[in-house]
């Protein structure tokens, strides 16, 4: 069936089978391989993307369910050539080693900060509790999100 999904502000119309999972639509149909495909069982969170600004696990959602909706992937975090503060935080605080969990972690972090701009450590840990990282022990991911919280300022305030 034909669907139109807006991904990172760009509409894409494709003919897809109803059984196509959103993660494969993004990676294989649109070539957006920043969204990682991990456990396939909604446990690991590597495939997290935002649907209408809310993080979901794209291995457990059909592409047809995203018809008419807005999807944000890691490729859409950067705005006008400027990395999102979350991306800068992961860079500054060494928030990744292998990087497999990173796109999903950053999209959940962006959602957390949009709804709670000054989260404490336990709130960050709770927000990412459905996502697995086997490298960092989470310490540097938590620091990265805190860094983003502390460096998300309006230009007036930072000037």
């Amino acid at each position, binding site marked *: *069936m034909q669907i139109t999904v807006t991904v990172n502000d760009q509409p894409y119309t494709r003919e897809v*089978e*109803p*059984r196509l*999972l959103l993660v494969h639509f993004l990676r294989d149909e649109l070539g957006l391989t920043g969204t990682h495909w991990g456990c*396939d*069982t*909604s446990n690991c*969170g590597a495939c*997290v993307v935002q649907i209408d600004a*809310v*993080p*979901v*696990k794209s291995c*457990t*959602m*059909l592409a*047809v*369910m995203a*018809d008419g909706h807005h999807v944000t992937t890691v490729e859409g975090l950067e705005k006008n050539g400027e990395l999102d503060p979350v991306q800068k935080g992961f860079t500054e605080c060494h928030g990744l080693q292998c990087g497999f969990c990173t796109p999903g972690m950053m999209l*959940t972090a962006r959602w957390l900060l949009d709804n709670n701009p000054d989260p404490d450590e336990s709130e960050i840990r*709770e*927000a990412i*509790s*459905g*996502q697995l990282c086997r490298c960092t022990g989470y310490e540097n991911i938590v620091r990265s999100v805190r860094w983003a919280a502390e460096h998300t300022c309006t230009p007036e305030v930072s000037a």
Partner: protein
Amino acid sequence: MQVPARFEYEKATSVPHALALLERYGPDARVVAGGHSLIPMMKLRLAQPEALIDINDLRELAHLRVEGGELAVGALVRHAELLASPLVAEHFAILIDAERVIADPVVRNRGTVGGSLCQADPSEDLAAAFAALKADAVVTGPGGSRTVPLRGFHQGPYETVVEPGELLAELRVPVRHGAGSAYEKVERRVGDWPVAAAGALILIEDGLITEAGIGLTAVSAPGFTAPEAEDYLIGREPVDAVFAEAGRRAAAVCNPHADQRGPADYKRHLAGELTRRALRKAARRAAED
């Protein structure tokens, strides 16, 4: 790579449209909302529906409000919405306790209350929480709506009273002023299914218990509840010895199975102990109310 078998897909635009689609596709059609139980089962080919009826656009099933002395929870309310609701927090602490330990925040953004109950997993947390609250389920079909006590909603593992052609529309829970409620769960790790869990509702008037509700999950309690333990509580003082005895009686109706989450004796022990703790916490909350 896990891929579901082929199926037809229809997006319902209203409840009557969803019912018409269910009638057209017959008993091999399944309703899908969050899909966080059904889609994994379809990937493993444990479920192979011929058609999926997507109800995610049915805003008329996404309500969460108090009306006529009852909390009405639409079947399409997401776990995250129930957890974030000030209305639910005010009247039903048990639902907040339970939602905090269901899966993880990202799964809760998508999974729905109705989907969890219709999946009818024998370890479902919300089945125990709503059983403790003595909720009713409103089931809609071609002939209109019918109301079923939640304690009779589940017919067995993965089986409910919802017939082919019908749809769970909402849950209704009486608001009991002055009541306290709580949910206690033991899980192996964050977000896991319970090893065992218990929910409790308690109303205390003039120092005596006048109403009690107990919900149990993952321990094969018939109807996810323990009526004999509830009856025992009525007219007694809300003290720990009474709660401990109610816990013993609740554990006695359980028939847990040994599995990777633990041996049967341990689960039965948990059923009693968690019932006691949930009652104690519910009573404390009732006193604070």
